[in-house]
């Protein structure tokens, strides 16, 4: 039964690889800007877009995706302006966007509770329910995002950064859920900061990969809820890696 479970988590593992590929570099940029909760805010605004589209009578499929993306990009545009204008207050702005969007969803849903299903699909994607068919469009979008990250100096181009981030998170949140998106962004980037080594990317990807593998295997082995198991594993790997690096760095 346990070997069979490993086959079952294979699509989830591939989804994890895709998420890590984009979120590790983006997470480092997020941490440098000091805006760690931006993914939650962007995801919540994307959800607001879905609920609004639903209230306007659009249902399922492309219209919902378009509404989510449009809302996320609008939020990205707004946030890139506030970062320029308000600078160090950006984290506070992001927090307000998060709670306001989440609460506006609740208000809209009280008129039209049917949209709740779409909202849930969007915000609490479950990594175990992923199928290979779903991964192809994600692969294409992420390849373009990675290409942009590679060719453009995103750290200096504020609007490009926020736009890429909005697209990436809107996709990944539906695939694996907000908790896993947050952990994939922040944990590897955090370890790299603590490690302060000349070659950060291999460390970040290594931490992320170890977290996903340990989480997925333990989920398959003792039947834990998969997404939550991976988040816990990522946190644990991050903690151990962070501690090891800070020990190594301190002169004896």
């Amino acid at each position: 039964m346990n070997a069979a479970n490993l086959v079952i988590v294979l699509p989830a593992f591939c989804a994890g690889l895709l998420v890590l590929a984009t979120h590790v570099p983006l997470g480092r940029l997020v941490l440098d800007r000091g805006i760690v909760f931006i993914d939650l805010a962007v995801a919540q605004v994307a959800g607001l877009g879905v609920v609004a589209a639903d209230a306007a009578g659009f249902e399922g499929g492309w219209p919902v995706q378009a509404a989510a993306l449009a809302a996320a990009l609008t939020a990205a545009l707004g946030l890139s302006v506030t970062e320029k204008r308000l600078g160090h207050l950006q984290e506070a702005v992001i927090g307000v966007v998060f709670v306001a969007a989440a609460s506006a969803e609740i208000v809209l849903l009280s008129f039209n509770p049917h949209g709740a299903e779409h909202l849930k699909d969007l915000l609490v994607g479950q990594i175990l329910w992923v199928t290979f068919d779903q991964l192809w469009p994600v692969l294409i979008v992420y390849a373009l995002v990675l290409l942009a990250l590679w060719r453009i100096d995103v750290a200096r181009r504020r609007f490009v950064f926020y736009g890429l981030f909005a697209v990436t998170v809107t996709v990944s949140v539906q695939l694996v859920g907000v908790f896993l998106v947050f952990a994939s962004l922040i944990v590897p980037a955090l370890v790299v900061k603590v490690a302060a080594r000349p070659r950060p990317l291999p460390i970040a990807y290594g931490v992320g990969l170890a977290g996903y593998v340990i989480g997925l295997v333990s989920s398959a082995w003792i039947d834990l809820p998969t997404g939550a198991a991976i988040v816990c594993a990522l946190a644990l790997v991050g903690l151990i890696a962070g501690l090891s690096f800070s020990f190594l760095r301190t002169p004896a």
Partner: protein
Amino acid sequence: MNRLVFTFAAAVLLTSGGAHATLNVFACEPEWAALAGEIGGDKVSVFTATTARQDPHQVQARPALIARLRAADLAVCTGAELEIGWMPVLLRQAANPKVQPGAPGYFAAADQVLLLDVPARLDRADGDVHAAGNPHLHLDPRNIAAVGAGLARRLADLDGANAAWYAARQKTFAEKWTAAMQGWEAKAAPLRGVAVVVYHKDWVYLENWLGLKQVATIEPKPGVAPGAAYLAQLLQDVPARGVKLILYAAYQEARAAQFVAEKSGVPAVMLPFTVGGTERATDLYGLFDDSINRLLAGVGTTR
């Protein structure tokens, strides 16, 4: 921790019982797992997808759900869209042709009984309404009897070698169940006509059976939390319409029911809702024993 113990216990049961058990049953909810056990005995090996502490509308994705459905000979679910949030994905992931809806290995309890609350019109503005009718049908024991009979036939179809075994166990169960129902109905006579407020509309079958009178729901629409104006109206209705009890399920949050109970002085009663919902609801008999005891105790305190 509990889940760990449970998983190991399940693994042990699976390996030790594997030689005898001929039929792998995947039960969507605890009540159908209990019923499959009553009728299948040791000819079936039953896995339960959800616990009594879980909202059956929503389920966390675990690998064993897919693995068990993949290996199942028979899936026993409520149907009527109750599992619509997770069963279709699970069926797709398991890719087991034996248990796809329409195949003999997919058994929906809702197909065996007449559903209540079938909406005359479907309007999404009315909330999470189930088009097929109210799916919480297991809280009327007469439905349990009907589903049990249908399940026994289905088990016999799938496992012809043991057809006589299923028929015999079904007969024993039906007799014992009828006797128990008579006992419950006699005991619950004081509950007839008692006005209740419920949190979510998942008690209609119990109310219909026992003659409880549902006056209002704490949720204005299924799946929507109440607003201030609605709650104020509700608090006026409770004394005005002689409400005696406020009911909520073990898997639901107690806060809304407790809030209304405190403001109105009417007791809030938590009911097991399904097998495993309370300590005493260890099987189908315990489920109804405990539900009726709790209802009677609740009515007793208001006198």
